[in-house]
């Protein structure tokens, strides 16, 4: 049961900050939020209306029931000399308060049913996006265009998690920013397929009005039609382990033309990445790229300083693997370690990324092996391991 280092002091430092924020933040834009967002899709709008309808019905019933009750509390008390009546049932009242709720419930069930039927209709989409949940990132595949990428918590947010200080010093989109956002066209029916690689996750962007689980071995479907260009943020909603709180979702909706341009850009970048694997990389190039890959793929567990988590997750700094035999190191990263949370990265990272990562891990954090790993080396290791 070890606590984070310097914990109490930091927490106590934050106390006055948090309190002052609580009193001052009337001016802050998104603070003191009370309700669901209306959202930007046809579904999110009808869900919002349904939510408000049920809420107001509940409030109304509450006002009546609690009103009667408080009247009784005020007037039917012994201290006012009120004598107790002796009635203990009334067939009329009992039938009435069984039948009336039934009618109210039917009134709620009808709009709920029509909404649900509409939500479950994923037929005739204009395009399909496949979303795969990983511990702890999302993978997006644009099935028609062949664009694929991973989306991780932005490094600035990750760095801020353990920082001293209160909310003011945190980035505005702290924990809601990613390195590679999903881009979708506006006014198109997008079918979203959901699955997961390891444990159950759930993909949720409140402004799209939908949430669905991403389950290993299953493919779930939802659909959306974003009517307003903009950036919409959400999070993984199903507990998926240590970094469940740190796998945000960012959807950028762009008009059709801009969206097409973005897709072309992505395709070109993917083609470039393939040729990049064929050339020799310099040390500064590898170290720079390696640092970025490490921050998104490894730092969640092994920490940004390579120190790992005591008693839990091995560090990279000074580790036998990262300073020992290169082939062994590559094998661990490519294939993972069975039965631990160290997952196989062979399919997740390409040769350039792996080469950069290996170079970085073997030279950063004081691991001065001097090794320089080229994409070709990684390709050979893959062949040897039958990957």
């Amino acid at each position, binding site marked *: 049961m070890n606590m984070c280092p310097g914990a109490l002091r930091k927490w106590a430092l934050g106390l006055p900050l948090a309190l002052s924020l609580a009193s001052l933040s009337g001016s802050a834009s998104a603070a003191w939020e009370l309700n669901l967002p209306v959202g930007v899709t046809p579904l999110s709008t009808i869900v919002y209306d349904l939510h408000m309808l*049920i809420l107001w019905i509940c409030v109304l019933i509450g006002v009546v029931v609690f009103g009667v*009750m408080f009247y009784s*509390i005020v007037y039917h008390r012994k201290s006012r000399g009120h004598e107790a009546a002796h009635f203990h049932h009334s067939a009329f009242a009992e039938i009435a308060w069984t039948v009336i709720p039934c009618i109210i419930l039917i009134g709620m069930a009808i709009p709920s049913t029509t909404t649900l039927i509409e939500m479950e209709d994923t037929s005739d989409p204009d395009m399909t996006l496949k979303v795969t949940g990983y511990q702890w990132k999302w993978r997006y595949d644009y099935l028609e265009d062949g664009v694929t990428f991973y989306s991780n918590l932005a490094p600035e947010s990750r760095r801020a998690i353990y920082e001293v200080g209160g909310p003011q010093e945190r980035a505005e989109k702290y924990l809601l920013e990613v390195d590679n956002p999903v881009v979708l066209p506006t006014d198109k029916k997008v079918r979203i397929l959901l699955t997961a690689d390891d444990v159950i996750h759930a993909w949720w962007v*409140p402004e799209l009005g939908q949430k669905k689980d991403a389950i290993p071995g299953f493919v779930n479907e939802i659909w959306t039609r974003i009517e307003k260009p903009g950036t919409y943020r959400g999070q993984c*909603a199903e*507990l998926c*382990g240590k970094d469940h709180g740190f796998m945000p979702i960012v959807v950028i909706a762009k008009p059709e033309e801009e969206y097409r341009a973005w897709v072309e850009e992505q395709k070109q970048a993917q083609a470039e990445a393939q040729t990049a694997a064929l050339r020799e990389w310099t040390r500064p190039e590898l170290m720079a790229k390696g640092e970025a890959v490490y921050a998104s793929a490894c730092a969640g567990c092994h920490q940004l300083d390579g120190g790992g988590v005591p008693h839990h997750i091995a560090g990279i700094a000074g580790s036998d693997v990262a300073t020992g035999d290169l082939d062994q190191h590559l094998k661990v990263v490519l294939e993972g370690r069975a039965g631990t949370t160290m997952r196989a990265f062979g399919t997740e990272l390409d040769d350039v990324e792996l080469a950069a990562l290996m170079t970085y891990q073997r030279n950063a954090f004081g691991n001065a092996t001097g090794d320089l790993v080229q994409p070709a080396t990684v390709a050979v290791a893959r062949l040897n391991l039958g990957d």
Partner: protein
Amino acid sequence: MSAVTTHHDDHAHEDHHHGPPPGLMRWVLTTNHKDIGTLYLLFALTMLFIGGFLAMGIRAELFQPGLQLLNPDLFNQFTAMHGLIMVFGAIMPAFVGFANWQVPIMIGAPDMALPRMNNWSFWILPFAGILLISTFFMPGGAPAAGWTMYPPLVLQGGMNVPFLIFAVHLLGMSSIMGAINIIVTILNMRAPGMTLLRMPLFVWTWLITAFLLIAAMPVLAGAVTMLLTDRFFGTSFFNAAGGGDPVMFQHIFWFFGHPEVYIMILPAFGIVSQILPAFCRKPLFGYESMVYATASIAFLSFIVWAHHMFTVGMPLAGELFFMYTTMLIAVPTGVKVFNWVATMWRGSMTFETPMLYAIAFVVLFTIGGFSGLMLAITPADFQYHDTYFVVAHFHYVLVTGALFAIVGGVYFWLPKWTGHMYDERLGKWHFWLSFISVNVLFFPQHFLGLAGMPRRIPDYSVQFVDWNVVSSIGGFVFGLSQLLFVYIIFRTIRGGAKAPDRAWEGARGLEWTLPSPPPYHTFVEPPKVTEADAHS
């Protein structure tokens, strides 16, 4: 209860050769329902504080953004263990404690029907609790996959997995034995004239709860056993790669889990239905409809389970079915609330601490019922699911519902159990501190959930800061207020004004015909119960 017989002679006769044996072994070997009831209640109180400590840790970490006190893994251990300890260690044993103390003296029985099994079903609990809590000190720590233990995540746990499963098995065995005992006692040991429809409502709710326990706990045992074999014996019940189905666990778990919700609330309905008439000085309104409403809630509880898993991707027909059945629960629940309000209507009310808790229960449980109705609406649930809105909902039904009924029940019967009146002024302080702080704690969580904060996260983005600060402050005050509760209880055990047999002017029922405290053995000669005694 004027027609009740000569109990005073009975206990005078009993005392000198049937008193409790002295010393520690009294508690280890006891087969006396009053002793065992006390043990259950003290165990529950201890667990309440351990679970509460974890809750304080959670609220402290969420007091501000960033990670200060708990690393994410430890945070997940805190939330999972908080849930497990509160459900299986605090709320359920507390109600069994009430059943042990109250059922025999409310139906005029000398003891529970199976006293030795009663001893056993209690003494399993501390071992189960120790097994569970010991996982905190193991390499890899405690279970961290939520109290719902969903695979595949829960199977990623380290050494804690077998301990968790074995602890759940033990807790389940204890509950089943307790339930069997309660059913046999109620069905076989009622005093002459105590027909089923003359039983106090608390006894009725427990009878129905006990059937729910017997039906639901084996299902949980089956589910966790499948986890065990998946982890250690190569089966693939829940492993998609081996042809299994991770969602099947959720179906099995919630087939237990939803009845479990009512296991934790029906006895609370019973307690409140005892307290309200006593302080309204007026009989319970709609006694029979209360019984039928309880039974229909129990029946419905077996066909609504998938409302906990609307987002797993069920077929439309399934989602509609579970939405309709869940909405239907509002009808019998509504009947109960209306009956309580009608009981208060034109009564002659006083507002001692038990009454304050009972009224707070009716109001706040109803708020939890409203959010429950909102959650039943499948399309809206897609937005609410797994957010703080759900956390707010089930804490309204479990804390201001179940726990408030337990606390109210303790104040109500403490004079009977100890023979002393508690300090009314302190009791009111405890009530008002708890009532205000618990709302400061949980009401803002509705807002957090609607604004988009998922549950079970150790850290959040800055837009959620304000309500989390408020909620944490409420949490700290609520937690500290419970120390006052313990102080009041122990002061009452040690002394205080002498409680009369009928501790409350308006209290009706066999237990109030006994001296306070009741002798070690009561109703050895069964009392006779008439219609007039039962419903007056």
